[in-house]
């Protein structure tokens, strides 16, 4: 009986891990695009994810009242719309702030601008987080509907004693996350825009001589990175509650996934996020709740210390 109970727990955690992992993976892809193309570690990525969540939340509160928009599908559409919205914000922020310490400006700064970039994005993170507290309030909110509380039952199996419940909202979110990542992969691989982004990251100087506007490529990459992470946030918002400080929690998950997959690699980042999601959910079987995040930090430290190039190395990167 105990063994079966354990089996059920493990299966249940694996399913939850895959679902969360897909959403983490999507967020990681956003972070890694920015690193891959611009060589910038964006400290404020978690705050942009938070903005994606609130975008979904507020649009839902304002528009959800209209009869033709009250379907269960509506929050998911809004989550996807968070992408273009945050893409625009990202482009604007790059124009106003980020470009002063990245790209061609970076070479004039100490240590290739690394410090300036880390510190500037930290500043943006602080402003967004605490400004968010003012604008959104500190009460946790969520964008849940009946799907968040419904599950498909998988089973019963093993002599009718093991059943796994698959949350519907999370499943839809995970599928959408996967679709966005695949779509982005096609964008990078097949289109002219993707080619110019890859060229700008491979060798900014050579790309400039070839007539590619590197500054514009960076601006688009920054917008894309933020937009994609914001979609991840929006999807997450349909099944979890959040408040303005949530970014800090997730940014570590994103770093862990990205480093695990090898900084700059899109496929690596998605798989890295996936692994982190599974690890987090499975560790919950044996560890108390508060230590779930500690597991992520410890595993993050272990990866970064033992294999800083990530498990998938540096091949296959946007860069």
């Amino acid at each position, binding site marked *: 009986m105990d063994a079966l109970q354990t089996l059920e727990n493990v299966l249940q955690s694996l399913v939850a891990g895959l679902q969360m992992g897909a959403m983490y993976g999507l967020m990681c892809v956003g972070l890694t695009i920015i690193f891959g193309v611009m060589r910038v*570690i964006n400290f404020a990525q978690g705050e942009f994810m938070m903005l994606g969540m609130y975008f979904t939340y507020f649009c839902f509160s304002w528009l959800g009242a209209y009869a033709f928009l009250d379907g269960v599908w509506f929050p998911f559409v809004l989550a996807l719309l968070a992408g273009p919205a945050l893409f625009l914000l990202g482009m604007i922020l790059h124009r106003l*702030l980020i470009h*002063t*310490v990245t790209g061609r400006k970076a070479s004039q*700064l*100490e*240590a290739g601008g*690394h*410090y*300036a970039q*880390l*510190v*500037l994005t*930290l*500043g*943006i*993170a*602080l*402003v*967004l*987080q*605490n*400004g*968010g*507290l*003012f604008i959104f309030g*500190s009460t946790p909110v969520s964008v849940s509907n009946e799907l968040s509380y419904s599950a498909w039952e998988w089973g019963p199996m093993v002599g009718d004693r093991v059943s796994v419940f698959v949350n519907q909202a999370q499943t839809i979110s995970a599928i959408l996350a996967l679709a966005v990542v695949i779509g982005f992969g096609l964008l990078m691989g097949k289109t002219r825009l993707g080619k110019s982004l890859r060229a700008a990251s491979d060798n900014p100087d050579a790309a400039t001589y070839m007539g590619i506007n590197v500054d514009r490529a960076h601006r688009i990459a920054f917008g894309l990175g933020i937009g994609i992470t914001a979609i991840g946030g929006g999807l997450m918002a349909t099944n979890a509650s959040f408040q*303005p400080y949530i970014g*800090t929690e997730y940014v*570590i998950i994103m*770093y862990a996934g990205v*480093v695990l997959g090898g*900084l700059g690699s899109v496929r690596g980042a998605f798989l890295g996020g996936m692994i982190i999601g599974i690890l987090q959910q499975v560790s919950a079987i044996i560890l*108390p709740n*508060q*230590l779930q*995040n*500690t597991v992520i*930090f*410890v595993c*993050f*430290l272990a990866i*970064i*210390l033992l294999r*800083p190039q990530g498990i998938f190395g540096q091949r296959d990167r946007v860069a």
Partner: protein
Amino acid sequence: MSGGTRDLIHIGLFAVVYMVLAFLVSNSYYQLIMTIVPVWAVMGLSWNLFSGYSGLISFGHAAFFGLGAYLVALCMIVWELNPWITIPLATVACGAAGLLVGLPTFRLRGHYFALAMLAYPLALLYIFEWLGYQEVALPRKEEAPVLYMQFESQVPYIALALLLLVIALVVTSRLIHCRFGMSLLAIKLDEDAAEAVGINTLAWKLSAIMISAALAGAAGGFYAVVLLVVTPLAVFGMLVSAQALIFAMFGGVGTLWGPVLGAFILVPLSEILYARYAADFPGIQGVIYGIAIIAVILFAPQGIFWKLQVLLKPGRSLVLGATASGMNDRADVGLLKVDAVPEAGVILEAAGLSKAFGGLQATNNLGFQVKTGELLGIIGPNGAGKTTLFNLLNGFIRPDSGSITFRGNAIVGKKPNRICAMGMARTFQVARPFTQLSVLDNVIVGAYVHSRGNDEAALHASAAIKLVGLERQCDLPAVNLTNKELRLMELARALASKPYLVLVDEILAGLDPDAMKEMLVVLRKVQDLGITVVIIEHSMQAMVQLVDRFIVLDHGALLTEGEPDSIVRDPQVIEAYLGKKWLADSGHEQTGVADDN
């Protein structure tokens, strides 16, 4: 008056003024701010002492602050230990924690280091929550208030906070003007070059993080006593690490007063605005810190201390650190003479050296000897593996196989700073100066490895500068030098370590004929001191006049060796440089390669 003494006077004046202010202010809220500000100034100094000087960005100083705070709080609750004991205890414990964090984390550089540091306080935050210390309140000790630092008036708290700050300032001031600060700055400006001139980079980074962590621990411990409540978010939270960084960056990194300035401007500003607007705008503190740091990056990336410096004394070039040493006129070039010339023989021997980078065999079963006191030229066409050979010799890269014996010791596997200490110095193909240090300080950094103190280092450095003839440029920052001066300075930096052997990498590259002649004269002077010189060069022309003997490399292997006369006529050498066809066409072997390159 030396920099250290002047600092002490400033610190003393500052403390007196602050204490007078403390007695004048009667509003209890302002008194509380006057207590908190020095604590954060200490955090800023702590961060600055490590990250500001070493250039390794720490996002994790909250780990030490929080450990200090919890140690003081829990010791008081569990064992009734008083803060007079536990704050020093927290200082020591956090120093040890710094060592524990540093040992694994210093394998990383740049982005990776910064990210790894972020994980420590956040992991601790969740661990302390899990342990059930969500909110730890320090018990009231009415029977012995003074023993437990629970004063009725706020003034003693201010005095203690000030004492802490004064200690942090004195410690910082003592450290930054001597070998400690200069070594860290060298690491910040070019870690590999620092290692090559004999700085034990790991040891200095470890001592820096230990002292820095100790200061942060003391600040955290005292913070617990002042606020009486400790929560994981308040002491391990992201904002704590961020504040330490922000005060230092805002005020000016790599300076004594910068972090203090940052804390004294930003803490009162955010506290007062918080008190006034917190009800309507709960996150106002974070927003102010965020805006402050964005503004600094955009408008004064060096911090306002440097900005003021530039405004007050325009035209002065930015020179970091400074040992405040001048040229020592008593320095004699003879100081650099190799003291006991070992019995004539072999000073360096390599056998069977191989190194491959992926599929490229950069060095292939290479063996050769360097005789004591000779001037040996290593030549070979592009890609022959010359610079790789130097990197193998001075320990930057480890050979896949083979052995290197220097003055009778096997040196494969030793770190570059050890090899430098044993008496092998080098220069670089592309000059690697410590750009923002003065020429004299650059050379002093090179001299530390065989000097007891700053004065001796300055003496050796002055001798080396005299030898290469850079006396007039000695106060300029290295970034302002010409190509020739840079190369002379690098040579002086190598010589200041009093080496037995110096590896010189393409020192003649890009020099005009006059400068080249000048350089040859300097190199002969070096040899006259009894120092063995191994020089890599591309072009044979100048080398034929200079060296005693040649080694010729091709495709990572030894092609031939011998006296200059025989080398320039060697058909193998001509073939390696100019190709088979040329050799066949010319029909004879007398035409020296020396006229070509």
